[in-house]
């Protein structure tokens, strides 16, 4: 038995027929071919599957696709608007904030939501803010640096725009 849902993904309207038990992450990965969002665990521990649902970071392995009906979902594929890297993407690249890259999309989405909530977070706030996302490669230090850089850049850009 399938349910009809309508969601907006990275600004594009999508109509899907999904089994009620289908996790959102598989709808994104296997029905919409958005494979940037990854699955790393069975227990909502690792955060590799983090996407933004109506602006809030959500572990999409633990949300059913049917629960996202009517919502706006943002994935890593939607970050680089108009082909221009998002300041977070740029900062992760410049600060070696990734190694194998598997946690990176989830980490970027969590960081985006963090900066939306708190545009100039302290190091402690950043570390707390990304503590739902596990990384096995980097030891987080360069991820923290990257988020600090992106925060500074976004604040400067916002100030210039004022």
């Amino acid at each position, binding site marked *: 038995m399938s349910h009809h849902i309508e969601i907006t993904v990275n600004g594009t309207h999508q109509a899907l027929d999904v089994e009620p038990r289908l996790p959102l992450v598989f709808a994104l990965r296997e029905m919409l071919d958005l*494979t940037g969002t990854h699955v790393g665990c069975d227990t909502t521990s690792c955060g590799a599957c983090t996407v933004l649902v109506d602006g809030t970071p959500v572990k999409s392995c633990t949300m059913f696709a049917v629960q996202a009906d009517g919502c706006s979902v943002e994935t890593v594929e939607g970050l680089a608007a108009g082909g221009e890297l998002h300041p977070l993407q740029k900062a992760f690249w410049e600060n*070696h904030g990734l190694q194998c890259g*598997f946690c990176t999309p989830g980490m970027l989405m969590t960081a985006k939501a963090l900066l939306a909530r708190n545009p100039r977070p302290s190091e402690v706030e950043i570390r707390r803010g990304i503590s739902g996302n596990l990384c*096995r490669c980097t030891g987080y*230090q360069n991820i923290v640096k990257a988020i600090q850089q992106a925060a500074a850049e976004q604040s400067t850009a916002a100030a210039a725009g004022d």
Partner: protein
Amino acid sequence: MAIEAPSAPVLGQALKRKEDPRFIQGQGRYLDDIRLTGMLYMSLVRSPYAHARLVKIDKQPALAVPGVLAVITGEDLAGLGLHWMPTLAGDKQMVLATGKVLFQYQEVAAVVAESRAAAYDGAAAVEVEYDALPVLVDAKHALDPGAPLLRDDREQKTNQIWHWESGDSMATAAAMAKAEVTVKQDVYFPRCHASPLETCGCIADMNKATGRLTLYVTSQAPHVYRTVLAMVAKLPEQMIRVVSPDVGGGFGVKVGVYPGYVVAVVASIVTGHPVKWVETRTEHLGSTAFARDYHMNVEIGATKQGRVQALRVHTLADHGAFDSQANPSKWPAGLFNICTGSYDFAAAFVDVDAVYTNKPPGGVSYRCSFRVTEASYLIERAMDVLAAELKMDPADLRRKNFIPPERFPYTTPLGWTYDSGNYPANFEKALGLIGYDDLRREQTERRARGELMGIGISSFTEIVGAGPSAQFDILGLKMFDSAEIRVHPTGKALARFGVRHQGQGHETTFAQIVGSELGLPAADVLVEEGDTDTAPYGLGTYGSRSTPVAGGAAALCARRIREKAKKIAAHLLECGEHDVEWADGKFRVAGAPERAVTMQDCAFAAYTNPPPGLEPGLEATYYYDPPNFTFPFGTYVAVVDIDPGTGEVKVRRFLAVDDCGVVINPMIVDGQIHGGLTEGFAIAFMQEIPYDSEGNCLASNFTEYLVPTAVETPHWETDRTTTPSPHHPIGAKGVGESPNVGSPSAFVNAVVDALSPLGVRHVDMPLTRERIWRVLREHGVVSA
């Protein structure tokens, strides 16, 4: 034609990584991102018992699940002779169980279905009847007379797998007997697991029409997989293509060939469709290669003044149900006899007894060059135990015993020849940077106030870069590695390697090596790895071997290209070849350096205007057999504070001063250090896979097997000294594993140092809050 001039030397620059643009945009291509037309999904049925007779498997309920197409059991594989497979360690391992199961989560049956969900539903529906057998969990009881015999398939009716020794036992016993001071300590390195964020998985695609098998798989060693598959499945090797796409972390757990891969191949042959199998996290932690599980007993004999003389180590190794560790064939305990470390021992002896237990197989896979982590932890811990016995500062004890710089190359009593080292310089740099003397003064003051502050040092030596072919092979395959470089007419290059990175940055660092050898910008060198159809043969990425072995191949392959290009340069410069010199990234006429041509000029000429008699084109292949290992080293210092009420340890500072020889990309080296230190921190403080008395795995997901978050992870301070390897083509030594190898002892030494006023000499990892609290309670610091 106008060609961009070569940039400044590219070796040693912190170039941004070439692989990152795809990863930060969600455009990586990991195994589970691949979907083939008509692809089916496989799920495995696993044993809930650690030791049980298999009575009956009923497939029917699974076959009744909508979407389920096939159920495969061990008996089905037995018909094909595929129910057992050889391991890389010379043992054999069940693919799907027949007769009995030997560990919880062992593979029992496979369900193939049209969808992922149907495969899971089908696996849940298979009915398996077991008859429980007595379980052997504790390796220390494996050789007891009444212990259950686990591997009744073997000729040898014992749970002992092998006994291995190294060194001179008589000389060591004599030196130990004569020593003025001896210390002895039991040290356990717990069973842990690398658990990269991407679990293991594969897609087996057997094309019935062509008879060709393509296996997409999360592999650190794709060529080894191809050869093993050819041997196991009896397929002609040219009819197998192994593709290891982007790998989401490996740390050694993706070196061995797992039963699921073999079953997926069979499933693809049986169904005529591509079959995907991806582990869950629980399957990953419960069945793929664990690490460590070494019960060690160490003795050091020394003079009263603290000069070490003899080292003796007895070890009991828990290998689980099959000896399937991915080790060099002639080295069952890996490179464990590196355990004399950075110190000048006159005599040493090591033995290891490996036993079977009802636990998953594995042994070496957690960012460790074959048991080097156990060895390094052991000697660094033992040196602190000796310092405590002698009432000496552990820094002074180390200073007294370092192998002096003038004695390199230095041969240890256990047979290794260290290539280069300057331990005192590295050590003093670290102690100076952290302010060691001030920290000791602060500690004295705090102790007077009853506070628990500790300083821990590890001054380790590693052995990496397996390995020289005379002694090192896997299943007979010599442990060389390879590079193939093609320089295109426009002066851009494609470089392919037999290794397979999983985040180490080869696409950047190998481009830097090739670029610097050829006078090309790293941006102009495209690096490819992971496809056995295109890459030259190699043994893969693990044991910090990529830079020491494949990095050597990269440099020498590029030099082979340069040799040919020199002939072309002479032709273009209209002079004799002996008049051409390679200087500052160009071929120049000796004595007239302004007359020069670039590598790009030569490349274009190689295809458009080759010298008469010279074969056109500009490409080369190089198989590099390293003459020796490389021996990176370093000094790590941890400073901790322990809450005397809760036992919680706070890592206040951690400094790593590494020496990995010549650095290719300092940004990437620092990143490797950060990551490895975080793993070492996890091992020291929170990671273990324990089993209960029935053999139930008690850490089978990330809520039980802990990975540190950004909150717990300390801030890492890093620095370096540089002692080039004299035999490596560019002087590099490899670095990936040093931080995991060297750091657990620094953490534990710091915690034990903090507890030493209570008379504590040793506490086994993981140093959880509870474990420390119990120590505090035993010593009356906290009341019960």
